[in-house]
């Protein structure tokens, strides 16, 4: 009986965190940091806010919403969610969910040449028109970049970002 009580007390203690940070909490951290290493063309940020958008099924479980209001280059970050049929060109960062794999063509058309940073994690994202792709490995989250696609949209990656990327496609 004593053991059962001890067990009940132990389990009710509000001490516990998850073992290590959740995958998507870390990816949200990456999304918040990327703008520090990316140069948008002059006049590309007309609005008062910095829009971080998600298109498709949201895998972040609320981790992204913690970024709401944080300042990016002096502008407050706003998290927005869209579907592939919306006008996505008004976003500064667009996270493309795995669920949108077959709608990539539609998404790229909606963006056109607008300076939107496309981030995703689907297989081959950087070769399907994406700019930064998360790769989950045993040693944590890494990312690949495609300089060509970024350049076509007027975005410039800093040398430090290219150093930290596990693979750099295009450029040279």
């Amino acid at each position: 009986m004593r053991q059962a009580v001890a067990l009940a007390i132990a389990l009710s203690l509000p001490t516990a965190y998850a073992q290590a940070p959740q995958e998507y909490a870390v990816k949200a951290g990456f999304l918040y940091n990327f703008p520090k290493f990316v140069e948008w063309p002059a006049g590309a940020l007309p609005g008062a806010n910095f829009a971080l958008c998600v298109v498709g099924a949201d895998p972040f479980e609320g981790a992204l919403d913690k970024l709401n209001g944080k300042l990016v280059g002096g502008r407050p970050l706003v998290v927005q969610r869209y579907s592939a049929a919306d006008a996505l060109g008004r976003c500064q960062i667009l996270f493309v969910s795995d669920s949108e794999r077959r709608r990539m063509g539609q998404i790229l058309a909606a963006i056109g040449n607008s300076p939107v940073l496309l981030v995703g994690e689907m297989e081959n994202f950087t070769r399907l028109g994406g700019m930064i792709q998360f790769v989950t490995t045993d040693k944590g989250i890494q990312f690949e970049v495609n300089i060509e696609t970024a350049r076509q949209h007027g975005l410039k990656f800093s040398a430090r970002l290219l150093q930290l990327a596990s693979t750099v496609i295009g450029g040279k």
Partner: protein
Amino acid sequence: MDTLNRREPFVSDYREQFMQFRDFRQLLGWLALGACSVCSAQTPSAGASAGVEPTELGLEALLGLEVTSVGKKPQRLADTAAAVFVITQDDIRRSGASSIPEVLRMAPGIEVARMNNSTWNISARGFNTRWSTKLLVLMDGRTIYSPVSSGVNWQEQDTMLPDIERIEVIRGPGATLYGANAVNGVINIITKSARSTEGGLAYVAAGNQENLAGVRYGGKLGDDVYYRAYVKHDARGAFRDATGAAAQDDWGRSRAGFRTDGKLANGDGFTLQGDLFQSRLGETYDMPILTPPFLLTLNDRAQSSGGNLLGRWQRTFSSTSEASLQLYYDQSVTSDIAADVGYKTVDADFQHRFAANDRHDIVWGGGYRRTRDDVTGGLTLAVLPQQGSYSIYNFFVQDEIALIPERLRLTLGSKFEHASLSGTDIQPSARLQWTPHAGHSLWGSVAKAVRTPSRLDLEARYNSAAFPGRLPTQISVFGTPAAGSEELVAQEIGYRFQPTQSFSLDATAFYNRYLKLRSTETGAPFVEAQPAPVHLVLPQYFDRKLGGHTAGVEIAAEWHTTAWWRWHAAYTYLRADDLHAIDGGSGVPYKFGYGGSSPSNQFYLRSSFDIGERTELDVWVKTVGQLTAIEIPAYISFNLRLGWKARKNLELSLVGQNLLEQRHAEFVTDDGTPRATQIPRSLFAQALLRF
């Protein structure tokens, strides 16, 4: 068997089990207390970011962070109009399982019965025997069943468990894309890409039943090419039989393999992987012989070895068009007293997926497989001719039509197969999925599936029993050309519900109508002079004069109660008691009444606790109903795993399995197989180091 209790065997047999369970509640209490005393003594290590929000960290710090991934990426699953259950790497690690068959116990719709130390009988939706023929198992795209028997030799199939990305358990006919043998289900084991496994990993485990060790190292070969290589060894001590006497079924196996993944300059992806294995198993065979005492008991050491090499090339033309080509070579030799079986298989598969327009998503492809086998008969088994060479061609096409975009999807497809052993089969399927709202999905499907025969079905002779009479008498089972393909028409409906990120429910109901099943028909007795002495043979011939239906329900649920406490549950119900003769047959199925060797009810429940920053406790219970035709009683298995992160890269764990009883039986000795033994209570401790 007490017919009065037959109605509710599930509940009444468990009263005794629960009595013993009370003692183990104490054990659990002490363990949890012990775990918490460990966690209160910890302080976060310097720079540990588990207590810090990732959004407070800079890019460099984020790159070095180890992360946990517990989700099953439901947005992908919700797209499937089929009964799919995904076992993640996290599930595998936390279950404490030390082999792939043990991992499969947590899936709904799957029956795992460990017959003895090295033999697992695994099936989906009924028909479980030593050579369960209606379940297709793939390891990274390679079919891993013995083409000679159409069953899976689970002791030959293994890999580094920490390098498994996920296991997809698909119940129902996956016929259209996967092909013959996927009658009741497909198990798709997918290992991690080499780009995800850079660095080293080594583990050592020791316990009262098993000792295990393995090491893997991975790295980068070029700009965008990654590799890994591993070596592992398992040694398992003998089990005991029902009387408590030690059996002779100890075994050990070694395995080594590699995997390379890379991208070419033009963006094409390629994979090259291979394994080599060798195992030695102890077995006890009871063989029928023609002279008194008509039964010979032999202790045997079987050996098996083999290897495989697989290459895959993928090209992504655009986000709406991808193609892949896969080639593999697989060979294995198994020698024991029953027979020497060797086979070599070459397989080529091609697949192209493209979106014809906004509404049509088409997959098409084809493949060719050629197998050469050599079966040298032993005391009881013979195959004539001894060597066989046979092939299968297949072509498939599937169209996923968005009737109402995002809401209603119809998938139509068919596989066309020509097997040199049995002829041409067509396996069409139709699936409809309705997603009225983001959190709900309803689907239904109708499909036809076929199991093509193996040489064992067509050309083998197996002596199953012998007894005295006017002449020594022998019962022999003969394969015949009439034992062609078995056929199934399956109807399923399913419902997927995910109201929030922390709860999901997946329910499936099925009705399987078997048009043709393998049966045994009694033939006219005849006298045979060879081998001496002259004896009378009572022949049984394989045929397909059996039909019937099975039905069932499978439910899986996952609930994240809090950030540190999760539940996983799976329930399986199977009704397989309607089999009857067709075409004037005798109505006798081959093997244990089919329905009678599968449990009617199974239930699995796992509770996962994250205690503090370094400790994990998983406790899981599985109840399996009785196997009526073979008189195996129902049992409850209670297991736990306690994991502790001693250092950043060192994980210690303690795993207890089958803790409730000293030993329990899960199956009986099947025809022509080594003796079944009982599964004991076991405990092992493991240390896993990453470097």
